[in-house]
Every structure is written in C-alpha cells, then in structure tokens.
C-alpha cells in the first residue's frame, strides 16, 4: 500500500468513486490526486508521482507530464508564497501593470523575483476571472489559493507583511 493511500484512504476512495469503476475512470483521478499530494508535501514529490501512477494504473511519465502541462502543479518545493497579479488586458486597462511595478519597487525586487528573506515571490499571471475588481492578485501558498481583489499597493503590502510574519 502506498503512503498516500495509507494516510488518506477515505479521501482517495471518495475521489475514485466520482469516476467510472474501470481503467479509464481510474485515470480521471490523476488531477485530484495531484492536488492531494501537493497539499500533503507542499509540492508533488517523485515518490508521490510513483504512488499516483500506481493508483491510477498509468505510467509515471503520464503523471509527470500532467505537472508540466498544468500550471497549478509543482514538482519543486517553492518555500514561498507566490503573489500572482493578473495583468491581462481588462486588468491592465485598470492600472494592473502600474500596480505590479510599484508593488515590486516597494519590495525591492523585479517582477518574477523573490524577496530577500526568501518568503514571497511576485509574478504576473493570466486572467483570474475578476476583471471588474482589478487590480487583483491571488496568493498561492501551502494553504492553497486565496483571492485579494480591488487592491492598492498599500493594501497589498499589508497582505504581504502578514504572510511574511506568519
């Protein structure tokens, strides 16, 4: 029995029950299982890839390719909170690019860089479906994703300072 199965038998059973009880259905569980592993270990470890492949009855290459394709899966520990500011057209029309620049200036970094204490990375991302509440960003961290909308540089710095202390 794999470590994930041992620790989360009920969760994994509930995931598998969503899909048909055949080979094709088992493969459908790969995305929810990747989330489960990422939540458990902070990122998808090599061991987790092997375990998920076993549960879904697919190759480890198939599992690893999912991590490469989908941007919300990570196979490296980041150890940081990622502040992801949407700078797509509707947000950019409402000042998101200037917001991102000023936020980074205040933190003493460039877009895409990590703060000197290694705790926070600030980057630009694609549409977050909150165009009427720009500027907005999501925080991707160990506890999942969190939206912060209608932001100013000041309010964003407040959020970031809390993350740094936490």
């Amino acid at each position, binding site marked *: 029995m794999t470590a994930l199965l041992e620790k989360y038998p009920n969760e994994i059973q509930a995931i598998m029950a969503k*899909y048909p009880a055949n080979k094709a259905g088992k493969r459908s569980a790969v995305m929810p299982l990747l989330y489960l592993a990422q939540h458990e270990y902070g990122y998808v470890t090599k061991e987790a890839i092997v375990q998920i492949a076993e549960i879904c009855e697919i190759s480890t290459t198939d599992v690893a*390719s999912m991590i490469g*394709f989908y941007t919300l899966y990570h196979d490296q520990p980041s150890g940081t909170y990622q502040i992801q500011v949407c700078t797509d*057209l*509707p947000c950019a*029309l*409402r000042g998101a690019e200037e917001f991102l620049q000023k936020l980074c200036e205040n933190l003493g970094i460039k877009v895409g860089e990590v703060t000197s204490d290694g705790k926070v990375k600030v980057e630009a991302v694609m*549409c977050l479906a909150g165009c*009427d509440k720009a500027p907005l960003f999501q925080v991707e961290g160990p506890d999942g994703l969190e939206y912060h909308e209608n932001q100013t540089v000041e309010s964003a710095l407040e959020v970031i300072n809390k993350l740094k202390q936490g």
Partner: protein
Amino acid sequence: MTEYILLRHRDIAGIEQIETYRNNGGFTALQKAITSMDPDDVTNEVKASGLRGRGGAGFPTGLKWSFIDGHNWPHYVIANADESEPGTFKDREILEGNPYQFLEGVAICAYAVKANNAYIYLRGEFWPIAKKLDQCIAEMEAAGLLGDKLFGRDISIRLHTHLGAGAYICGEESALLDSLEGKLGQPRLRPPFPPAVGVYSKPTIVNNVETLSNVPFIIDRGAAWFKGIGTEKSPGPKIFSLSGCVNRPGNYELPLGTTFRELIMDHGRGIIEGHKIKAIMAAGASSALIMANDEALNTPMDYESLQKLGAQLGSASVIVIDETFDIPWVINKTVHFFQHESCGKCTPCREGTYWMMHLTERINSGEASMEDVELLHDVASQIKGKCLCALGEFSIEAPLSGIERFKADFEARTAKTNA
C-alpha cells in the same frame, strides 16, 4: 428587467442556502420535469425556448441535447465552469451567489439526456467554489433531490465536481473532455462531436454554467415566456461582463439585444474621467476590435447584429478601451495571452502565436516599421482557418481587426522607424 432570472441573489438574500432557494420556487422545475415530463419533452421545451449556448458559440441548446446518441450508453453531462477568458467573470458570480439554480439546471439536463452522472469542471482557482458546490450537492442528496429513486421514480442523477489546474485551453470543450479523462488538455479532432463521442468515448452534453442556469426557469415558466425576453433569434436574459475603462465595471443581466450604449453609458456609467471611448471588444480577448462609433454604440448586443460589425458576441464579455490607450499595446496584450495559453498541439497556433508575439512586442516598443505590421497581418492571416480548435482562431481576431480598423495607431507607433 423587473426581476433577475440568473443573478437572483441580487433580489433574494440568502438564496445560496437550500431552504431559501426552495422557498422561492427552487426545485419545482426539477420535480415538474421528472414527475410530469418525458426526457424528450424537456429537450423539446428547451429547443422551443430558443436558448443558445452562453459560453461563446451561441449554439442552440435544445438542438445539442437532441443530438445525444441513444444507441451508446451511458450518457454524461458536463457543466463547463472553466471560466478563463480575459474579460469574463459571470459564471463565477452565478456559482457563488445562486449555486442551486445552476445545479438544478445540471440535474434537469441530465434527466433530459438520460445521464446518471454529471461532472462540473471548474478552473483550479475556483477551488473554494468547488468546495461549496460539494456541500450544496450533499444537501441536495440529503433532501432527496439528487441520488437514486428521485421523486419516487426509477431515476438516478449524481453530480460531481472536478478541478482543472490552470489551463485556459480546458474551456474548449474537447480539451476539457481529455482533461477530465486525466490527460493533457488538448483539443480533439472533430467530428465526432461530444453528443456522439464525448468523455470516456460516450455520448456527452457539454454546456456552459450560464446556459444551464436558464433551464429551471424555462421548464418552470415555459418556452413562450422565455421567448418574450430578448430578440426573436437571440431570446432570453444574458449576463454581460463589463470591464475596462468604465466607471462601474461588473456583471449586468440584461435582455439580449440591449445596445452597447445602454450597457456602457447607462449601466457602466460611462468612461473613466470622461475620456472618449475608442474601441470595444465584445467577446473578451477573443474579440475583433470594434470601432466605438455611433453605429457600433447603437448596435443591439445579440448573436446576429454583432456580425454586421465584423465581430462576435461570444460570451458577452465587453471590454471597453478609451482614447488614452493605443491599439498596438492592446493587441500585444491579447497575443501574449494566447501565446501563453496555446496548448501546443497544432502548429498554426503554437508557432503562429509565438511569431505574432515577437512582432507585436517589437511594434509596441516602437522598434518596428509598417513592413512589420504588414508581416503581422500576413502571419495572422495564415493562421486563419488552419487551427485545430477555436482558441487558435480567436488569437488572430484582435491583431487582424486592429490593423485593419486602427491603422493610424500603427503608423504612429512605427513613425520613428519608417522615417
């Protein structure tokens, strides 16, 4: 409109609670369908209503349901909640504010096409919404509204949420099917279409969240009532996501056929700082750029009228651009988006968006000449009609229309190099 049909949480506080929803007529349509209508009657009623898909394509919903292959089982229903188009934020409000109406719509669709299982595919960032929907589904099961033996009949319907993980392409229905099967989200060659061969190679109906949220009202009040809203060919209410340079961005539920002027100037309270409106994108980043002259502003927003402006209504995500922005910058933004989100499966989109991005980047930085603008037009034209899915095709809408309709902006941006 006098009452909200889709954004009912704005009229009725607490409608995201099952009891409040039920006390306000909730689930009567599901009960009516299962206890007094044959599945085909339900499909025919939706067909008669003229409801068209709200995800972008505008395909007649009832017609799609009628295409389900009755010789291949089991059937599946999928609700597309992978809302990721820049400028679109309507499904999120429905899911957060009025979740039971949406779920009731999914269940009615499942009954109509004889599916026992339906999946709700949400973009990964919507995980808190998925969590809430799981609770709503559990409450509906506890209340006997989902599960087995519904309303004393031998009908089983189960709903399941499934989270994507950050890929715009999965909003494209055939890519969504592959993603749900645990594969890379890349589009399939069609035909066959999902009602014949869908998820797990079984007949599948894929509908947008907003489309399905209309269904309970259509069953409850009838097709004739629904046709009384909107225009003859584009009936019903529509949520317009208004964003960009307006004073009051947000979702506006209005009858199809409302003019741009009413949406932007009345509901959106006009342009920020009193600037002049320059361009409109009606279908998010996938739009052609419309010159915002009087003719355009007076155009009714429905599926037919937009074509006369050389544009599409799509998901009705209206991005407003004012005179302080120039078009080379705008298309540089949209092309970057498509280049980033191209799934890489077909060459015209993968390579085409890459080369377009280099050109728009150079044009926008003022380092290009009009020859480069012509080259961009040429590259975009070569992508046209050659992509595996609509998303590749959409990537050229803004560049082509931008160059053709706002030539002066490009001449200004390239003036230094041309001289």
